């Protein structure tokens, strides 16, 4: 066979395993998930076709709207602070040089590589109602020995704060890369033009770093929409329903209530939500960029 044919065979061998894995573990489950939303299947096995019943149920399910609200609330509490904080920290770190810069950057970044359960343990201890080192800050809120996050209105903000602490290093890294792309000569020209520090930030840094800001915010947004781990860990042993997130709802419906079809429906809603957000990001970048 000709050269082209030989290439084709080799190519198919090379992509074979990948395609196999993808077909089995991505395409098939995704299709299954969509189909499942129209059935009343339990977790294992198939049920019968019920059309849009799951969707109708979803619309009136109080737990679902709680989950949506909680997820969006959490997203707002974690994405905006972590994006802004990431930029501020990056501006600070960028001014340092050499050993100091590496050390400070590592300090902000190390939390990011820790597993979520370790992060949970660290903060569970620091916020402990009896012996936590930050406990004195919250003593004014209530008299009992409860940890601050057991206090329902404080739960989301606390978990969001821990999440920001955990993940900000990622944002800092991206912002630093973006800041380095702005040539220092532009700042020098601005210095010559008489710009104050604040003017340099608002007139030069902010507009030029905007694409990175959008990127960071979107990555965080998509990431936090899928929140499960931290909320599960911190809420364990407390009133879990009040603080349930979308992914938790999927987990609950499928694994506890044995409602595979319903769980798949929630999953599909989450999927659509993420797609919408990604498209919005693209548009936002394009609009701002051409202004």
């Amino acid at each position, binding site marked *: 066979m000709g050269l082209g044919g030989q*290439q*084709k065979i*080799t*190519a*198919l061998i*090379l*992509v074979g*395993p*990948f*395609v196999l*894995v*993808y077909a*089995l*573990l*991505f395409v*098939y*489950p*995704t299709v*299954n*998930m969509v189909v*499942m939303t129209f059935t009343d299947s339990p*977790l*294992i096995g198939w049920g019968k076709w019920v059309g849009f019943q799951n969707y109708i149920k979803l619309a009136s399910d109080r737990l679902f709207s709680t989950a949506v609200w909680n997820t969006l609330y959490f997203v707002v509490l974690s994405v905006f602070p972590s994006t802004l904080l990431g930029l501020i920290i990056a501006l*600070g770190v960028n*001014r*340092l040089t050499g050993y*100091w810069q590496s*050390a*400070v950057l*590592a300090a902000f970044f*190390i939390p990011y*590589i*820790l*597993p*979520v*359960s*370790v992060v*949970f*343990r*660290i903060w569970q201890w620091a916020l402990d109602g*009896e*012996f936590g080192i930050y406990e004195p800050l919250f003593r004014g809120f209530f008299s009992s020995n409860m940890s601050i996050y057991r206090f329902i209105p404080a739960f989301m903000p606390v978990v969001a704060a821990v999440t920001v602490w955990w993940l900000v290093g*990622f944002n800092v*890294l*991206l912002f630093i890369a973006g800041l380095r792309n702005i040539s220092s000569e532009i700042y020098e020209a601005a210095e010559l033009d008489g710009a104050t520090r604040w003017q340099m930030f608002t007139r030069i840094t902010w507009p030029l770093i905007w*694409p990175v800001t959008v990127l960071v915010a*979107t*990555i965080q947004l998509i990431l936090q929409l*899928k929140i*499960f781990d931290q909320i599960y*860990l911190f809420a364990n042993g407390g009133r879990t329903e009040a603080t349930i997130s979308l992914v938790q709802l999927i987990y609950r419906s*499928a*694994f506890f209530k044995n409602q*595979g079809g319903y*769980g*798949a429906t929630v*999953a599909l809603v989450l*999927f659509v939500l*993420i797609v919408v957000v*990604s498209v919005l990001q693209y548009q936002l970048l394009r609009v701002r960029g051409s202004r």
Partner: protein
Amino acid sequence: MSVADAADVAVATAVRAETGRGSLRPVDGTGFVLTLLTVLGALFWIFPIYWALVTSFKPEEDVVQPGIKLWPEHFTFENYSFVLLNTKIGLWYLNSLVTSGAVTILVMLMSAMAGYAISQLEFPGRRLLWWLILASFMVPIPALIVNHFVLMSQFGLINTWAGVILPQLIAPVTVMIYKQFFDSVPKDFREAAIIDGATELQLLWRLYLPMNKGITTALAIITFIAAWNNFLWPFLVATSEPMMNITVGITQVTDAFGVKYARWLATAALAALPVAALYLIFQRRVTQAIMLTAGIKG
């Protein structure tokens, strides 16, 4: 060094850094304050980790005493030895090592091969495959947990290593990065090697991969860390204690010793040790990999 000493050193160095270059420059007050704030911020940021570590080296009675001791009065390893001897932590480590290692090796192999094929070869369905990979970005893995669980149970793989490993093999980012890097290898090298008689596989193994050793290391480290730190999926699949990952194990098994803060923190420290060590050794590679993956998503 206490926190106060460290801050002093930081201040002194910051002052030197600000005014060191050129002694005739008027002292930049705002700049100095900003640098100071940054360094203080870093200390504040790392404090919880420090505090957790310090606590793990204190005997349990000291931990629950009132008052704050920033350094253990009685430095001890008893929490660590208890955990290592009395829990299944050894098994959890093994599970984590095996599953994370397997995921890393398999993902790297498949991604390199597929990335190479998509980048360099013509074959039917090439475009379709690329779109499929892009699409898999959109679908969040947590949305598929139900179906993955069902699938694994159909194969009888619940509570096995294979069950933990398989769904984690979906790694679109790795393939995309490989493709990007392979694309950027100048065509001249390829043509010279073909004239020398290399086959496609040889091209991949002896030319393209060696030329991109750096990102292979970076991607491998980051894949390993992600697999090690994975919580949700191993949590679902491992239904018995001996099969748990270490990240799952440390949160699930608390009743064994009641409320023992120092021990919990010791287990957490042990769980984080490998990935923290990986990062500290390969800092540059990790940050490089992170920036690459973000570049892909942007």
